[in-house]
């Protein structure tokens, strides 16, 4: 890999041991990829928090040890300076305002608090959400980013026209300290065109249906790059968020193109660029029905837990849930947790939405989700969610049964204490 004079000096220690370690990792990673060079970035979003039991042992030796090992892949403990470029913490494991409800050990909450202080002092902002683009981090078109979180990466590339690969914990540590990331994959304009075509023959309009189309897409195209034909309804950003998160869960989709909607696809032809347009993969009524069934991992209707807000809810989604819950009570045997970024929670509080959800017996959570924290209310066996992504992951991670449905079905079911949606 070719390094600039400045980058070579960084690797050789001109800016200290931690920058040298970061550059060493980026070179090893870039060479593994077959990248020819690095690219500058001023937009890094990664996972830095240290708050699980495995990390707790390491944290006894100090947070520099945790960062050195897990964010730089360095055997030596190096002193971590301030980040070189704007850097953000993505979703984390503990909501410090709700850790008791989560069932988190107070010692772990204390570790989280100290970890956040350590990271904040080094310039890593504690947005603590899987949706950076909902709380002010909105890359401009063509901006080179280094982001983790598959649902954020697909949104950044497809909806915003920013450029990022799916980065990891170690590469985002190195990127924060150096402002560099390998120039490979979706950083290169020639790699961003569509190579698969999905023909949509059914009406896709509400949130749940966009999630189902995304889930279908991921299974069909795996890690490839789909464009769409036949979409009758223009999706808003919430639908694109849900769609992308689903496609990045059932497959490894990192970019998609919707002509007339997403910025790099003014037309279907432009979406494919120099690539041949392949025969279409049809999404019709049979495929729609089969994908709905594929999202159901449950047989028991009695419901213990309803999880809303994956990816984290927008303020409009919070308002809708409050509206659906107004004057109602959640069944005493069923728990309802609603997840939204901390910044949006402030608005939900001021707007009275949080109070309505809490009066109905629900909990408004920030910073985390049950799949990331692996924390659910005690004794949960059957879960329902409005998220295709959560329906994909939670049953495997938490060993529970899982239903998927619309937000309306989920709220009604939480009130009834049993699943009222479709049964596969």
């Amino acid at each position, binding site marked *: 890999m070719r390094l600039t004079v400045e980058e070579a000096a960084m690797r050789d220690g001109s800016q200290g041991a931690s920058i040298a370690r970061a550059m060493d990792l980026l070179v090893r990673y870039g060479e*593994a990829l077959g990248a020819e060079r690095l690219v500058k970035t001023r937009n890094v979003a990664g996972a830095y928090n240290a708050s699980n039991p495995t990390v707790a042992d390491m944290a006894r030796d100090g947070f520099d040890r945790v960062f050195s090992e897990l964010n730089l892949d360095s055997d030596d403990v190096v002193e971590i300076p301030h980040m070189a470029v704007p850097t953000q913490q993505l979703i984390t494991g503990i909501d410090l305002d709700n850790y008791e409800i989560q069932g988190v050990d107070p010692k772990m909450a204390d570790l989280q608090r100290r970890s956040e202080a350590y990271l904040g002092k080094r310039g890593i902002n504690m947005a603590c959400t899987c949706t950076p683009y909902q709380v002010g981090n909105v890359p401009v078109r063509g901006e080179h980013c280094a982001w983790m979180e*598959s649902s954020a990466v697909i949104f950044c590339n497809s909806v915003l026209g920013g450029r990022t690969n799916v980065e990891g914990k170690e590469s985002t540590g190195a990127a924060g300290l150096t402002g560099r990331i390998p120039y490979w994959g979706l950083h290169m304009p020639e790699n961003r065109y569509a190579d698969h075509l999905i023909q949509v023959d059914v009406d896709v309009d509400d949130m749940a249906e966009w999630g189902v189309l995304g889930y279908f897409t991921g299974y069909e195209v*795996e890690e490839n790059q789909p464009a769409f034909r036949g979409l009758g309804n223009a999706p808003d950003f919430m639908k694109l968020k849900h769609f992308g998160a689903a496609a990045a869960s059932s497959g*490894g989709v990192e970019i998609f193109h919707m002509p007339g909607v997403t910025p790099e696809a003014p037309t279907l032809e432009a979406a494919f660029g120099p690539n041949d347009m392949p025969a279409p993969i049809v999404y019709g009524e049979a495929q729609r029905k089969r994908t709905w069934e594929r999202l159901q991992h449950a047989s028991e209707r009695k419901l213990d837990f309803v999880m809303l807000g994956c990816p984290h809810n927008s303020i409009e989604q919070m308002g809708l849930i409050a509206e659906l819950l107004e004057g109602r009570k959640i069944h005493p045997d069923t728990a309802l947790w609603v997840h939204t970024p901390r910044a949006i929670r402030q608005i939900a509080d001021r707007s009275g939405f949080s109070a309505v959800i809490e009066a109905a017996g629900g909990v408004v959570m920030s910073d985390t989700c049950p799949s990331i924290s692996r924390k659910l209310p005690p004794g949960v066996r059957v879960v329902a969610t409005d998220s295709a992504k959560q329906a994909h992951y939670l049953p495997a*991670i938490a060993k529970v049964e899982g239903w998927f449905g619309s937000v309306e079905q989920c709220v009604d079911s939480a009130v009834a204490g049993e699943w009222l949606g479709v049964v596969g």
Partner: protein
Amino acid sequence: MSKTLTQPTTITLRGRKVVGGTARAEALVTRQTISGWGGINEREGTVIELNHELHGQSFAGKVLVFPGAKGSSGWSAFFHMCRLNKVAPAAMIFTRMTTKIALGAVVTRVPAITDLDGDVFELIETGDIVEIDADAGVVTITKSGTATQE
């Protein structure tokens, strides 16, 4: 006249180094991609994804032969923790390059190789002994139970 052959069958393939080093171990082969976060147990070195053909099986100390990585961006962190917990694979042979698998192989710090000049899923079976010299870009496969008679 029949003759007993005791020479095992070996196959040699060439490819591109991803992470340098050498290893020799039994192969564990799957045609399915593997998830890191949510797909493996990092304390035991096992595949936990429901419906995966390797569900419940351990890759610790094995030469893992697979198409590559899928799923969450936590892929590298989970294989990184496998190394710290001493349950990492001995080596990785894969066919589809992505940032997840590249970074994951780097931080797992095991010999890794890709772009081999033969179909690894046809030529390597679980239980074969596989020797990797990643720096030289060479993989040598010794078929299990290949002592044949004619």
